[in-house]
């Protein structure tokens, strides 16, 4: 399978501080890829850089999406190419209603209505009552994550960047989110890069590959369940040593 995303020798700074160092990753089309790592290791930075946040300055290296270099493309250009991010802590915006954003995601003008199919998805995510509320403002943890996932699915992306979809969310919402994303990936052949700490969301997402991000660098690649078990047993630092030893990296 060709790669949907390829990152080569990527080094990134935020506020003039190094946050990523010589990152190399390749994600195949249709694959769900998992990113493990302790807090502050640079996981969110990596997703933000792929999405194109101007706060993250690429110092070296390149990002390729479907074989095209996108390192210098703006956020909205990347979104239109088919990259979508579900944020760990989604931004609230006063006066901008959830329905406004859903219409944008579904590529509709403010005066156009959502289709029946899209409305059904709103119902499925149990967000009907929040449509006229300011987006993410005073939403509960579960509501925020459901709203993020609904936005993503309406955008019909080719690559989903999911930043801790399973943190601060109730079990029912997690099940819904996990199943819907898995179903979407299965139906459309889309790919996903997922950050998770506990691995809860992996109960629903069929991920084949994972890696550990530690001290701004990627250390090893393996099956998610293998890495997760090792992190649980010995912690990130020991896990990385062991894996590197085994794979002879």
């Amino acid at each position: 399978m060709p790669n949907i995303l390829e990152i080569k020798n990527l080094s990134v700074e935020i506020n003039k501080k190094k946050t990523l160092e010589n990152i190399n990753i390749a994600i195949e089309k249709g694959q769900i890829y998992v990113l493990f790592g302790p807090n502050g290791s640079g996981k969110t930075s990596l997703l933000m850089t792929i999405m194109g946040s101007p706060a993250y300055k690429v110092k070296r290296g390149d990002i390729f999406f479907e074989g095209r270099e996108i390192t210098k493309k703006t956020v909205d250009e990347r979104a239109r190419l088919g990259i979508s991010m579900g944020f760990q802590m989604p931004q609230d915006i006063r006066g901008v209603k959830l329905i406004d954003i859903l219409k944008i995601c579904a590529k509709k003008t403010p005066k156009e209505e959502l289709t029946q199919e899209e409305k059904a998805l709103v119902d499925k995510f149990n967000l009907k009552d929040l449509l006229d509320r300011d987006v993410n403002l005073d939403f509960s943890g579960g509501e925020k994550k459901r709203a993020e996932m609904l936005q993503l699915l309406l955008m019909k992306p080719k690559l989903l960047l999911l930043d801790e979809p399973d943190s601060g969310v109730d079990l029912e919402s997690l099940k819904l989110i996990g199943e819907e994303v898995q179903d979407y990936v299965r139906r459309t052949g889309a790919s996903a890069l997922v950050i998770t700490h506990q691995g809860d969301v992996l109960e629903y997402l069929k991920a084949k590959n994972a890696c550990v991000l530690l001290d701004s660098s990627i250390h090893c690649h393996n099956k998610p369940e293998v890495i997760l078990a090792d992190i649980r047993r010995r912690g990130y630092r020991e896990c990385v040593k062991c894996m590197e030893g085994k794979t002879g990296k």
Partner: protein
Amino acid sequence: MKSLRDLPGKVVKDAANVGIDEREEKRSASFFHMDEAALFSKVMEDYRDKIELLDIKEALKKYDGLKDYYWKLIDKNKDEYTKNADEKIMGGYYMRILPGQKVEVPLQSCMFISKQKFKQYVHNIIIAEEGSEAQIISGCASSEGTGSAEHVGVSEFYIKKGAKLTFTMIHNWTPETIVRPRSAAVVEDSASFVSNYVILKQVADLQMYPTAYCKGKNSVARFSSLMYAQGNSHMDVGSRVFLEGEGSRAEIISRAIAKDASTIISRGDLRNTNPNVKGHLECRGLLLGKEAVIHAIPELLAKGEGSDMSHEAAVGRIAEKEIFYLMSRGMTKDEATALIIRGFLDTSILNLPAELDRTIKEMTEKVSERL
């Protein structure tokens, strides 16, 4: 004049921009004052037993000088503008909602300047009798080319026991106009006064500080303003509420956007004499120009244990994080900025009937598109 449609086409158009419906279809009563005289005053047939509408001069004659209402809430010697308004009064309206009458369809009034450099002095008396309910749209505008005109409008509101009045004032002046509204309201037991203010066009110099006296038990006053200043506009706009009645409540909310080299002074003042009251003041400002200035001056004077008063004020530029979030959904930077500004001028902070909400939403959409 038989209908507002008889006005010159240009005037009709300018008036429509401040919420005046020339067809009068969805209005229960209409009043139109141009330059120095009232041109039109009419209560629709279905509402003649609910609304009394007169030219103020006529009302002063008919009711022996309106001794209980005229210059009772505002001191005529307060400043040069009130003095002029007293001495040079040209008109204005007397609007009374009769006791117990619920008027669901809005009344409308327009104060219009068409003559060059004209100085307009008007005085309005609005009475919501006991248990009545009504909504008033008050649109004020001047025609292009009127130059350095001046508008001084005195308005005194009497919201009697259990009455509910929503007053929405929309201004649309030419860039050289000087504007001095002078308003005050008294709110009796269980009565509520909602005052909305919208100004989205350049104005030379606007200054006002409408005041509500919540004298009644459980009385409520609520002031909301949407202000958008551009060019060299100078807007000094505040609202003040005296919480005097037991259980009275007040809320003052404003959204101010200053662009170019404009200045907005956004004031708010809540004071209580009765400790058993609640008040909240909220001022948000957005700066869209290097020379733009917003000066937020919220004041609270809380007396006595049990007083519950709060204020929040925030002035800044559009957060990069908000723009990034919207761009990640596929919007361009300009589209994202426009959406945030439109959202900032959120009409839902005004408690408007659906039709008027649509009108004002369209106005704010135009503003955000222009940026």
